[in-house]
């Protein structure tokens, strides 16, 4: 028995060591996040003012605001979502509701996965080659939005698919039993029930689009353009590209530091808001859907 106790306490000791180690490592991951967030928040907060958000950049981007970059990013979000959201949702409906299990479905899913795995810089190359040069859109909001749209398409498809899958099959059967057609069932039963989750997916892909830099480098982003676009064939500044430019290759890196911090904070804020919104929606509708 003494032997047994020794083994047992040895086991307990190892377990305690392992669990505490894992706990420390896990919390250090959280600590990394907190360090990044608080560093940028604290430093960036000083730079942020109403003027910073609404003024044009001045003096080789060492002074002034980031207004055109905010607007540019907004246009790019809107443009890419106008493209990716309908196609993504329709595509997910086809895969989940119409396609039969078989080669085609597997193939489309594989291709969607592959598209999701392609690095964003490759999207940049592709967008430049197809939209900017071959189709002649030039460096423009149109070219940038289409490139970003293709990039987020897999995200939209995947989240919509999850949302559709979450609707129990019995609801569909119930609708068919009442004589509804497939399309009616999708429109009146499946889509309304999955809408909250689809919207959550949309919000998350907005978060993704707002931070992407590599795809817009050669399709839309302007280094310095202190005016607002007037058509979809104009170039724009964008927040992530602006941050890259002023932190690495601005005319005076030291002087533009505060602006860099401020820009980073605005980017982080967008991501934070998007995540909170998505989580909030998920929780709110999650409960509601269950109750119905």
């Amino acid at each position, binding site marked *: 028995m003494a032997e*047994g106790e020794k*083994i047992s306490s040895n086991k307990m000791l190892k377990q305690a060591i392992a669990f505490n180690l894992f706990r420390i490592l896990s919390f250090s991951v959280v600590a990394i996040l907190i360090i990044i967030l608080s560093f940028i928040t604290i430093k960036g907060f000083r730079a942020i003012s109403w003027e910073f958000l609404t003024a044009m950049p001045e003096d080789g981007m060492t002074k002034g605001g980031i207004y055109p970059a905010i607007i540019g990013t907004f246009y790019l979000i809107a443009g890419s979502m106008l493209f990716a959201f309908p196609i993504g949702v329709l595509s997910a409906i086809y895969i989940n509701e119409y396609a039969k299990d078989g080669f085609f479905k597997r193939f489309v899913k594989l291709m969607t996965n592959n598209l999701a795995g392609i690095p964003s810089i490759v999207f940049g190359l592709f967008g430049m080659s197809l939209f900017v040069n071959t189709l002649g859109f030039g460096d423009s909001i149109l070219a940038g939005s289409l490139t970003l749209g293709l990039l987020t398409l897999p995200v939209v498809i995947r989240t919509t698919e999850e949302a559709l899958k979450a609707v129990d099959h019995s609801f569909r059967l119930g609708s068919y039993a009442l004589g509804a057609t497939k399309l009616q069932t999708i429109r009146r039963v499946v889509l309304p029930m999955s809408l909250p989750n689809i919207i959550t997916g949309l919000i998350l892909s907005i978060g993704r689009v707002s931070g992407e830099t590599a795809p817009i480098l050669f399709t839309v982003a302007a280094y310095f353009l202190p005016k607002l676009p007037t058509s979809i064939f104009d170039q724009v500044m964008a927040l992530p590209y602006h941050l890259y430019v002023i932190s690495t290759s601005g005319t005076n890196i030291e002087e533009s530091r505060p602006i860099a911090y401020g820009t980073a904070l605005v980017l982080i804020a967008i991501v934070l808001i998007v995540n909170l919104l998505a989580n909030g929606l998920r929780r709110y509708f999650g409960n509601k859907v269950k109750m119905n």
Partner: protein
Amino acid sequence: MKIRTHQVNLYYSDFHALKGITMEISANTVTALIGPSGCGKSTFLRVFNRMNDLIDGVKITGDIFIDGQEIYDRKTNIDDLRKNVGMVFQKPNPFPKSIFENVAYGLRVNGINDKKFIEERVERSLHQSALWDEVKDKMKKSAFELSGGQQQRLCIARALAIEPSIILMDEPASALDPISTAKIEELIYELKKNYTIIIVTHNMQQAGRVSDKTGFFYLGELIEYDDTKIIFTNPKNPRTQNYITGRFG
């Protein structure tokens, strides 16, 4: 008495799953626990190796003695308890390891490293579970390569290797074909000589064939507990009668 329980109550949060179960089980017998789904028989089985401890929000009151020792006592070492009380599950659940390592697992986690000792014990356990002849040439192969019935006997060998005195069986044959089932039942009969066995089963015939005593559970209560012969031929409680004759469940 090998096992004695007195007024055992078990709650899953608010749900009262076991209601005042009192039962005595003698050594080297087979006790069958029967009853409709959700009646608490599996929960009761898992009281003996404290498997319910893993579930959040479980509360247990009452006394459970094994060999005269209260197993929910603070002094009881839970690892030692589980070493003494082996368990075989509903579906065969070998580890993603070789056949040999599956059987050796219990020894290794309990701090035994003597290679020769482990080899001897593995072989003996496989003999006991009537699997040795079928696997002796492929001990290094993955346990997943065995058939379902073989896997279940491997799981029994795995439980026997740490020399428990009690074996809990949770519907051990429910996922198996009739031939494999017969083999398991034969095995239970053999094992009875050296072990105290408690088996949960849905299969009335099986309970009748393998057990000495039978307890009938219904809605968390032990309705009737007696010799198997009596339960199946002359139950005292009408609800037991109804269940045995297949009127509900």
